[in-house]
């Protein structure tokens, strides 16, 4: 029963990684860059929800919508001001800019909200689920996190495969020049990608802080790195890969902490990543790189 409980918690934590990983993987697939500030957008989203609920007296759903809006605007602004001017620059210049942007967001949060951790109130007030005569207790946030992940995955897959914007994203991801020749506005497509990733980051902020209620300016940093790992693990650029990588990573982390070593939990996660990449350099669901002729 303890194992089952750990497994459920692993899937839940992994679902959070998966939702964050989507932001990394979509931006990587379409804009061909690693947006290392993505984790910090989660933190900003969580602070907006916190302030909305604690200080501004907003009902929880309104606070969440507000956070999504703020994060969307933030993500699009970061892209426009910091990354778009570097579209022709080397990958290294973009990477350093992204790392700088990450610190800028953390330090700005430090300035506004201070270093003291805030206790994030869980907006999910329903009772815990008691199964097997009370032996397996599942908290509402755990369940909602898993459900949210499933809903987001289905919605995003439909968006990518059915809508005009979704198809444009796939084209830009495959061949930016050819996409332009079709009449696709590449800049706008990249901007929308950042918007979607950042809105999802706000949701990830909500789910993360509901399960782990300590909120501080560095809150998004470690989950961001792990979600990035999950994206690479699943195959960067692949949406189902982000889902699979995220959930597996969450399970490995929780089970590793429970059965191997609490202290080494994170090290185990990265060890598994390294082994997987040695065997499959493009990740679990990544497309093998084809040589361009």
């Amino acid at each position, binding site marked *: 029963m303890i194992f089952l409980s750990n497994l459920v918690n692993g899937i839940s934590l992994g679902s959070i990684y998966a939702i964050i990983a989507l932001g990394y993987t979509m931006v990587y697939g379409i804009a061909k860059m690693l947006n290392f500030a993505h984790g910090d957008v989660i933190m900003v989203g969580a602070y907006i929800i916190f302030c909305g609920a604690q200080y501004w007296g907003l009902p929880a759903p309104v606070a969440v919508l507000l956070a999504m809006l703020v994060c969307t605007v933030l993500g699009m602004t970061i892209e426009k001001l910091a990354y778009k001017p570097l579209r022709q620059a080397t990958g290294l210049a973009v990477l350093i800019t992204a790392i700088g942007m990450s610190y800028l967001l953390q330090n700005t949060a430090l300035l506004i909200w201070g270093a003291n951790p805030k206790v994030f109130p869980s907006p999910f007030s329903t009772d815990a689920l008691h199964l097997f005569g009370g032996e397996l207790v599942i908290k509402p946030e755990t369940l909602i996190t898993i459900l949210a992940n499933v809903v987001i995955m289905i919605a995003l897959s439909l968006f990518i495969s059915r809508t*005009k914007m979704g*198809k*444009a994203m*796939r*084209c830009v991801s*495959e*061949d930016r*020049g*050819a*996409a*332009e*020749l*079709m*009449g*696709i*506005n*590449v800049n706008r497509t990249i901007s929308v990608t950042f918007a979607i990733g950042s809105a999802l980051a706000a949701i990830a902020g909500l789910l993360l802080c509901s399960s782990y209620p300590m909120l501080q300016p560095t809150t998004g940093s470690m989950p961001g790195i792990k979600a990035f790992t999950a994206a690479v693990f699943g195959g960067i650029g692949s949406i189902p890969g982000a889902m699979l990588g995220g959930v597996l990573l969450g399970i490995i982390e929780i089970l590793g902490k429970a059965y191997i070593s609490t202290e080494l939990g994170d090290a185990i996660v990265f060890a598994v990543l390294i082994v997987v990449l040695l065997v499959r350099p493009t990740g679990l669901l990544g*497309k093998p790189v*084809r040589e361009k*002729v």
Partner: protein
Amino acid sequence: MSESPKLPLLKVNGLHVYYGAIHAIKGISLEVNEGEIVTLIGANGAGKSTTLNTIAGLLKPRQGTVAFGGMPVGGTGASKMVYKGLSLCPEGRRIFQQMTVKENLEMGSFSRPKDELESSMAQVYGFFPRLKEREKQIAGTLSGGEQQMLAMGRALMSKPRLMMLDEPSMGLAPILVEQIFEIIREMNRAGTTILLVEQNAQMALSIANRAYVMETGRITMEGNARELMNDDNVRKAYLGS
């Protein structure tokens, strides 16, 4: 009653294009009139693709002008050019490998109103019945010839006034080359003006009305395609006789 002189559909004037410090196009001028097939031939590295990519808006010229349909279009990005009626079928095909044949064609009509999709698709399948059979196949798994057909079909989906084709015969068996050129001729008869870049000068000159010969970034000869085919210099340099 004085007749106003007919404007060419495409007019390129004194174009210079650089890749960093490399001066790839050194002041070329050319024209394509409505209804024509014009070919641009020349050896590998002469600057043919650079010329087409610049006209299509993928590259920015440092100097010179491009006018399409009588309007200057210099500096217009590639994604806007297709809305003006200009379509490029690029070198190396560049179809969307991970999408199906049908999805590729749909993307070709991205710039067009949705209600045209059916009829455009039917027109493309008319030219390329093979694509209809392969509708659901992932484009990356098509043969080279089929991929070329798909690239041409996709370019046609935007209903261009001018279609530019960059080496459609590249890497294809002779029988397929003949087929592709026959289709280019048919597309032209159906009303699309063609600017064709080729290394296969023999084939290109045989279907074109007029031709330009390019060497290291400059146009060195131009004229009636039939006459160029019989020109001694052209025969020596490009027709191997």
